[in-house]
């Protein structure tokens, strides 16, 4: 009876929230949980097959989105928290939302789960499998230290049923360490192309020490942040052989990438992505590997993944008054650096990518950086100083102007000043709607406005854009 009331209350809150034109990605779940704290487990029991969890610092939403595409094309009905609300209330809301759309019981729940929520989520959902994408320093103020984050995910994995599969990124030493001594099925994915990436990293690496003995790890290849090919000189720990490997990776700047994927059992597929950068190659590999674990045909899964366009705030393209907006969520230094490098150039990509947008001359790029520091964004704004905004100051980046906005607009403006971006090119407009309007006005028709918001700023921007009719509200079905 309590379960019924919880669901009823939750769905009512959901309908009310939608009716009022609001996102409500967590409130309906909170309402249901307040009636029945164990509702998540109950809701999961209604699934035909079970739950797959995706966790890690960067790439949860994109990996989940790619996997959702493959699963839906493969005929599965899903519960999926596509907006990225990944705390317990968000997970419950995803179930409530799905049940208000599908007449029949869904097959699978595909849920991205926040690292700190892992122990609870695994306990309640008892998933078929867990994907761990990577660990980067992110929202340090929430967990205190990276070690704590990793420990929480490890705790979650410990609670898994033995038959569950664990899918780990072989190129991240912090992630692969979770596979150590784990009974049951552990599958690794990674990039195995010695002709790309770099021999030396230029980013603030966050973990370069052997999780076993503390010695500094020796790398001979870096792809993204501290992800690459590593081994402990003491010989007790090294990158595992990936069960699914990206053998030949060709990055195509803003247009995406193409990877020749090889997997155990003689599987060979070509994975084309319309999402840029190494970081998305990893997301694609994770989605493909998970799809295979769930019984999908690799070639079909690869095709679906290739068709996927940008999801919620991840390189989302929106046309507003003839301007091309590229909306990309930023959460932490590594992610932001990848975005800056992809848009504004770095040696590792294809040199033609600087003109890949095709439609604008070099020195007229407009950028809108929107930084909030609410709980979901991370309350400690210090992380801006670990981002290489110096990239925006380089003449080759072709930046005509930057507008900083959000609650911490001034911090971003100061950061840009110290990064060497000329002060006359930076405007500080804390209020987001006004900043968006100013940024659009400054962008010539036909050109691209690069928008990089933190999480709550992105929600606000999308809200603003949807009121103007430019984007569908995210609950109105698939974004692509």
């Amino acid at each position, binding site marked *: 009876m309590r379960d019924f009331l919880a669901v009823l209350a939750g769905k009512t809150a959901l309908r009310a929230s939608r009716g009022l034109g609001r996102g409500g990605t967590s409130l309906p779940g909170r309402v249901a949980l307040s009636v029945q704290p164990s509702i998540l487990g109950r809701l999961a029991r209604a699934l035909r097959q079970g739950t797959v969890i995706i966790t890690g610092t960067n790439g949860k939403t994109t990996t989940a989105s790619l996997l959702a595409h493959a699963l839906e094309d493969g005929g599965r009905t899903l519960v999926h928290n596509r907006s990225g609300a990944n705390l317990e209330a968000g997970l419950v809301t995803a179930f409530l939302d799905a049940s208000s759309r599908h007449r029949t019981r869904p097959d699978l729940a595909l849920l991205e789960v926040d690292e700190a929520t892992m122990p609870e989520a695994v306990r309640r959902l008892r998933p078929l499998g867990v994907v761990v994408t990577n660990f980067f320093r992110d929202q340090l103020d929430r967990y205190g230290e990276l070690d704590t984050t990793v420990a929480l995910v490890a705790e979650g994995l410990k609670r898994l049923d033995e038959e569950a599969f664990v899918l780990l990124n072989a190129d991240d030493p912090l992630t692969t360490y979770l596979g150590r001594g784990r009974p049951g099925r552990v599958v690794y994915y990674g990039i195995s192309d010695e002709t790309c990436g770099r021999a030396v990293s230029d980013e603030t690496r966050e973990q370069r020490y052997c999780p076993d003995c503390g010695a500094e790890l020796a790398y001979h290849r870096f792809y993204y942040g501290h992800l690459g090919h590593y081994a402990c000189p003491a010989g007790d720990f090294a990158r595992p052989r990936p069960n699914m490997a990206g053998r030949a990776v060709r990055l195509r700047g803003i247009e995406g990438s193409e990877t020749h994927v090889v997997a155990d059992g003689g599987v060979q597929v070509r994975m084309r992505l319309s999402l840029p950068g190494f970081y998305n190659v990893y997301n694609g590999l994770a989605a493909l590997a998970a799809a295979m674990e769930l019984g999908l045909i690799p070639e079909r899964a690869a095709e679906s993944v290739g068709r996927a366009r940008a999801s919620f705030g991840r390189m989302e393209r929106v046309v507003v008054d003839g301007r091309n907006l590229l909306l990309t969520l930023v959460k932490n230094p590594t992610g932001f650096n990848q975005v800056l490098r992809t848009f504004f150039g770095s040696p590792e990509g294809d040199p033609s990518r600087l003109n890949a947008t095709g439609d604008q001359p070099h020195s007229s790029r407009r950028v809108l950086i929107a930084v909030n520091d609410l709980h979901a964004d991370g*309350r400690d704004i210090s*992380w801006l100083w670990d981002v290489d905004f110096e990239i925006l100051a380089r003449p080759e980046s072709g930046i005509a102007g930057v507008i900083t906005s959000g609650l911490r607009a*001034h911090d971003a403006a*100061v950061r840009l000043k110290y990064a060497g971006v000329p002060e006359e090119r930076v405007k500080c407009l804390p209020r987001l709607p006004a900043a968006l309007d100013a940024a659009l006005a400054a962008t010539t028709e036909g050109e691209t406005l690069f928008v990089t918001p933190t999480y709550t700023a992105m929600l606000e921007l999308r809200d603003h854009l949807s009121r103007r009719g430019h984007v569908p509200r995210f609950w109105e079905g698939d974004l692509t």
Partner: protein
Amino acid sequence: MKLALGHLYPRLMNLYGDRGNIIALVRRAEWRGITVEYTEIGLGDKPKFAVFDLLFMGGGQDKDQRLIAGDFRASKGASLAEAIEDGVALLAVCGGYQMLGRSYRLISGEGVPGLAVLDLETMAGRKRMIGDVVLESSLSGRPRTLVGFENHSGRTYLGSRVRPLGRVLVGHGNNGEDGWEGCRYRNVIGTYLHGSLLPKNPWLADWLLDRAVRRRYGQAAELQPLDDSLEEAAHRAAAAHARARGPARRRVRGRLARESRDRTSGGAGLCPSTERW
């Protein structure tokens, strides 16, 4: 003019934006036409700290602090202590701040010995002190504010031979009890504040640069003022933000209140009277 800037343990102690302090110091020096020679000092290095005018050490995770503790004492300790007594300008944030003290105690009870150059000690605490911070500091001669963000479970207690950096207006401070944050000893500033600290507090960056320049080039050497209107706007915005959402410092009563009065008036008690360094 030239300044030699040394950065202690840049890879291990670089938690959360602390390199913003390096960026701020270097830029503000360069904008004045001062060349900065930047040197990284890592595990195993045994530099002669007398060659440096300015030093910085950031914070790290507990295990990183444990890792460097031995090296810090063995390879850096004596030379650094001498340089500090000689008046080298140094900014130490979070873990760096703790390690300059006598010791840092973990929850397990395990004590990690520090350099014992600063008269302070840190105990492990259960509660994490996280949030926006606003301080009032008289370091530069008149009361000014400092803004930042703290994130530490260590509780630091100052001895009588050091003074606090400032009085907590918003936030927890050194230990969440006595209402003080950071420390100052000769030309050393220790603090828990991230933010990064110096970009939004340009007067503090200039205080450090000023100390470094005068020590090297004599008391007559002066820093040209810079246009800090953007930094000051950011400072004001951060302070307003902190006041709106940070915890107000609890009022202290009784003995602690008397102690804090003594400090403010510079009278007898826990603080030495104002010294000029």
